[in-house]
């Protein structure tokens, strides 16, 4: 489409001289884009913060020993062999776990892969006995998943020998300080002394009831020959479920869980949030497009006299149509641009001045690109009908009947 200069000239003049109507639709578009940008950033930020709080310092996908599976109590002949045999068995450890580790290391998009010896222990001190979760982890990988350095509230993140990092709840309950020694008993009654190297705050009560130790020490403490968990953190948290289900197809002898499965409520909340925000945005777009279409439609009728004259003195049907398309496009573009700026300002005002959010807004291009493009497309579409009217109008209608 070649736009001739006079089409621009006349379209802009119509816009400038139709001040009130122009401002009306311009304002509508700008407001629509601004609100959508703001809303997207707000909800995006909220979701990121929720997800970050939930899974930021925990594994996104875990591999566990196969769940309980049935065993046969019949001999091949069909005779019942042993009534006392448990009808199901479950593996205590991941068999041939090194093989999984090697395979995972070849996958892309993973941030950390941590072999874990996981189990239960009991701390006894000053006459109190409390159950704690024991996690023997690969120190380097564990540091990535649990962000030891970032979340350490005191001491240092040292996991070797008898050194352990204890969760904040455990530390508070037993008034532990870095350097303190504590006795942890395992579920078979034996136990060992450990030294607190650091105290860590992972943000939630269950996570803060963990005692971290080195993988080797954990294996020994829990009497494992191998490991019973592989914890994986990935780069894009929202891909966890997809990856997990792909891995499930790959391996049948381990149980694979994504954070989404372990946090159903959160996921539902996120989804319904997105749905309601999409619904709001749909209605915003809908009312904006109605507004643009009606205002441009009225303007086309109001300008039919001018169009008749213009056509008499040489504007052709295409030119007349483009005068209106240009108006729609101009309003869409300028309104969107203004909307982006206003939306940005609104977000800054909301967080910086009002301090209304405890989280950062997710101010990213995708949050305004889609509404802005939609606004431009809608404005152009809304100007189609007046453009068609303008193209159809014959000069004689105006010249004869005014």
């Amino acid at each position, binding site marked *: 489409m070649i736009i001739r200069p006079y089409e621009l000239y006349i379209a802009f003049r119509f816009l400038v*001289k139709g001040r009130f109507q122009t401002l009306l639709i311009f304002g509508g578009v700008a407001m629509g884009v601004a609100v959508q940008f703001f809303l997207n950033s707000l909800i995006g930020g909220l979701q990121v913060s929720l997800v970050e709080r939930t899974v930021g310092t925990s594994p996104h996908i875990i591999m566990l020993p196969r769940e309980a599976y049935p065993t046969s109590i019949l001999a091949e002949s069909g005779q019942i062999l042993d009534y006392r045999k448990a009808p199901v068995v479950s593996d205590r450890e991941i068999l041939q776990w090194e093989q999984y580790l090697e395979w995972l290391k070849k996958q892309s998009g993973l941030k950390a892969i941590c072999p874990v010896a996981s189990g239960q222990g009991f701390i006894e001190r000053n006459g109190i006995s409390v159950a704690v979760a024991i996690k023997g982890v690969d120190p380097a990988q564990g540091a990535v998943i649990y962000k030891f350095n970032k979340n350490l509230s005191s001491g240092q993140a040292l996991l070797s020998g008898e050194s352990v990092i204890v969760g904040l709840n455990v530390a508070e309950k037993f008034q532990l300080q870095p350097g303190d020694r504590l006795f942890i008993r395992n579920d078979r009654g034996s136990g060992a002394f450990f030294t607190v190297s650091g105290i860590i705050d992972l943000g939630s009560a269950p996570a803060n009831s963990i005692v971290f130790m080195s993988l080797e020490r954990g294996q020994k403490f829990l009497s494992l020959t191998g490991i019973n968990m592989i914890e994986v953190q990935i780069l894009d948290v929202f891909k966890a479920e997809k990856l997990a289900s792909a891995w499930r197809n790959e391996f049948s002898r381990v149980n694979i869980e994504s954070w989404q499965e372990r946090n159903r409520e959160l996921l539902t909340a996120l989804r319904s949030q997105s749905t309601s925000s999409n619904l709001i945005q749909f209605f915003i777009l809908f009312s904006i497009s109605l507004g643009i279409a009606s205002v441009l439609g009225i303007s086309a009728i109001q300008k039919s006299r001018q169009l008749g*004259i213009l056509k008499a*003195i*040489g504007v052709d049907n295409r*030119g007349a149509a483009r005068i209106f398309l240009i108006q729609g496009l101009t309003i869409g573009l300028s309104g969107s641009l203004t909307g982006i700026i206003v939306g940005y300002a609104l977000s800054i005002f909301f967080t910086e001045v009002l301090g209304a959010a405890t989280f950062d807004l997710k101010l990213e291009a995708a949050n305004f690109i889609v509404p802005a493009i939609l606004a431009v497309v809608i404005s152009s579409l809304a100007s189609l009908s007046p453009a068609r009217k303008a193209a159809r109008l014959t000069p*004689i209608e105006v010249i004869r009947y005014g």
Partner: protein
Amino acid sequence: MAEIVVVKDLTKSYGQLVKTLVLKNITYSFEKGSFTAVIGPSGSGKSTLLNILGLLERPTSGQLIIDGQDFSRGEVNDYSEYRNRHLGFIFQFHYLLPEFTVLENVLLPVWIEAGRPEGAIYRKALELMSAIGISQLKDKYPAEISGGEQQRTAIARALINDPRIVLADEPTGNLDRETGFAVLEVMTGMIRELGTTLIMVTHDREIALRAERVVELVDGRICRSFVVKEEGVERVKTLLEDRRCVFSD
């Protein structure tokens, strides 16, 4: 005598089912560079004829030749460019664009033809406007000037692209008599000076007297036409007084 507009057996009818024949077999040649007045009672088809000559409306049948080019077929939209380049229009209700200043209105045809006008055309527009007596109004909007001034603006707009033909439909019909004659004076003066062909519809016989040729339409037909110089002004006056131009069908 050079002919600039030739119509042969031109008819125009309106309506699909019930056809109203508005122009019936019009055959006439308009002389190049002359001022022809088309007169006749209201409803006789003057405006229809003029609009067809101005390529704003299409004939139902017959031939229309302008400057040797055949315009008998095609759509109104096909001739936008021709109207812009070679035809000038002045209507009864001066039809200026209210969003544009007087100068901009005058320059609109140039804009449409070639984009932003360069300096030479600005000077030309201003000269034209001062010859017509509206150069002091150049930055005013149509709503801010009088009817006579608006019509002068329309005249300048009709002339800016050096048209071959200027078509005027009762250009003074909406003005008081005095203003009307002043505007007419300016218009005919300018057009004579430029040597442009002028075809003007009027029902004012006094205005028709100023033309070189007169065509009288009655009921969609040419009932008579004459050259003023050949008949002599006095005889033309009596001819115009005689309103009995009746057809026998």
